[in-house]
């Protein structure tokens, strides 16, 4: 009896027998181990997301997620919240308390919401905090003063680019762009150009940059993404840290080091502090353990789900292009009456398992049975 040779792929694939073993041809084919991995990652993602939603006690402030009023007009949101709690006492706080009076009511939009259940049985049982905002007005073709007035009337802070633009310069747009809904108090940069572009002159009063150094740009009020882009264009590296802030500053740079206008070596790190929204009246601890944990956990869950999708579907497409990636097969071994198991793997990590049977013809004894 000749030896039986088995070759397996070392990687841990899930295998499915296609035919019975023993004698003749038997075959075990690997179905997608990547698909199983994808499913596992998906399960992990869902678990992480569920834990993120359910586990942190301080996340209860977000717990009433069945009601989403972001994007609705303030009055409509209030009506929905009251209807949602069906007669229970509800306290709704709007941020800011006094929105721009010039804005019509239907332009007061909810840009963020927070919910907190009552901690005792006295007073309102549901606390809602609604951050308000509106759409950025269109300032194109307005002069500097007109554009500034329009933006201020909409309830936003005004910044002009360039800062030393003359009064007759015309607005070409804004950042954030017109039509985007942002919170009141958010800095809106008005992009200005001279009405009749003349010869370009060096701006007066600008300190001359020393050779080999770069000027640290002003990032105040910029988003993290924009700050990263600006610093990268300048040849600097960003270091982001998060600090508690007001709703109007959420996601915006509130401080930077070195200060704007500083001259530093290219490649230097600029530390920026980005405001993170915390609930009014809540402690820093709640902010850290609630929102601070919830968002990364949800992000992790979403990331895992994307990874699962990529593994499942991406690998599936790869397998279709190359149908035989890895399989373990048992087939008659050349030169032997027995079967062999061998793997056809695309990787190099294969091992050979050889079964060496040793038969024994045995020994016979004959004894008479005495009756």
């Amino acid at each position, binding site marked *: 009896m000749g030896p*039986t040779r088995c070759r397996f792929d070392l990687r841990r*694939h899930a*295998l499915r027998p296609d035919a019975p073993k023993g004698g003749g041809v038997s075959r075990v084919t690997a179905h997608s181990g990547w698909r199983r991995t994808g499913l596992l990652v998906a399960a992990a993602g869902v678990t992480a997301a569920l834990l993120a939603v359910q586990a942190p006690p301080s996340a209860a402030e977000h717990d009433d997620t069945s009601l989403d009023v972001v994007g609705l007009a303030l009055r409509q949101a209030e009506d929905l919240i009251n209807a949602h709690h069906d007669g229970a006492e509800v306290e709704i706080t709007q941020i800011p308390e006094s929105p721009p009076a010039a804005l019509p009511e239907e332009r007061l939009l909810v840009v963020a919401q927070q919910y907190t259940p009552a901690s005792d049985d006295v007073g309102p049982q549901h606390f809602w905090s609604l951050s308000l905002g509106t759409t950025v007005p269109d300032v194109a073709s307005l002069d500097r003063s007109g554009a500034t007035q329009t933006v201020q009337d909409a309830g936003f802070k005004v910044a002009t680019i360039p800062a030393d633009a003359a009064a007759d310069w015309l607005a070409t747009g804004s950042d954030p762009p017109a039509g985007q809904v942002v919170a009141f108090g958010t800095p809106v940069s008005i992009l200005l150009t001279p009405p009749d572009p003349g010869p370009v002159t060096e701006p007066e009063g600008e300190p001359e940059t020393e050779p080999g150094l770069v000027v640290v740009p002003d990032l105040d009020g910029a988003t993290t993404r924009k700050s990263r882009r600006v610093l990268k264009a300048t040849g600097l590296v960003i270091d982001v840290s998060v600090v508690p802030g007001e709703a109007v500053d959420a996601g915006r740079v509130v401080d930077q080091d070195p200060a704007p206008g500083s001259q530093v070596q290219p490649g230097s790190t600029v530390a920026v502090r980005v405001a993170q929204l915390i609930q009014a009246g809540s402690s820093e601890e709640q902010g850290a353990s609630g929102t601070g944990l919830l968002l990364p956990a949800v992000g992790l869950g979403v990331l895992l789900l994307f990874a699962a999708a990529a593994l499942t579907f991406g690998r599936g497409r790869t397998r279709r292009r190359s149908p035989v990636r890895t399989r373990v097969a048992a087939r008659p071994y050349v030169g032997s009456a027995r079967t062999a198991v061998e793997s056809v793997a695309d990787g190099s990590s294969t*091992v050979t398992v050889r079964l060496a049977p040793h038969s024994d*013809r045995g020994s016979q004894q004959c*004894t*008479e049975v005495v009756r």
Partner: protein
Amino acid sequence: MNRSAAQSPLTVRSFLYGESADADALAHSLDERGVTAVSAEALRGLSRAGRQTAGAEVASVAGALLDLDLDNLLLGGWRKHGELTAAARRTAALPGSREVVQLATHCVTSTHQPYVDLLLDDVRVTRIHFDLSVQFLIKGVLGTVGDGCLLDLVAGHCEVTATLAAEGRHLLTRRGEVELPGMVRLGAGVRLVDPPAVASVRAGG
């Protein structure tokens, strides 16, 4: 269990696991008694599917080790039976003579210790031992001996008891009765004594 000479020989495997014996039956026994775990432990570096495949192949290979013809085992015992070998020597010394031998109740026991080595990249990682015992309890045999060979069986039957174990763990025991004239394939005769023994009888005269 009656068999004719024209049928395929009755093997230990088919006696233990039935006529349609396949590797699954033995694999089930090995798995049930924890023998498969021995090979799996030795191959723990492999994937789960690889270990399962190896376990199934161990059963397949072990099944082949049980492809021992029962009649050959019995004849191996009869070659050590005093009355039969004596008749064989006498008839070998007198060509053309025949003797009908009636054998008393006797027992033939055949023991085997086959094993399967598992080699991982040509390095042995474990050895799985099997213990097989086949016992024949023979009654009422009338055999015809001529020219040093067993030529025919006129009567007799036997009780067969086969026991299989692996790694010291009992797997299966099967008992059955067979009619000897049907089971033992004699053909033109089965030699009971070696030619040198025949020559020595002739020389001794």
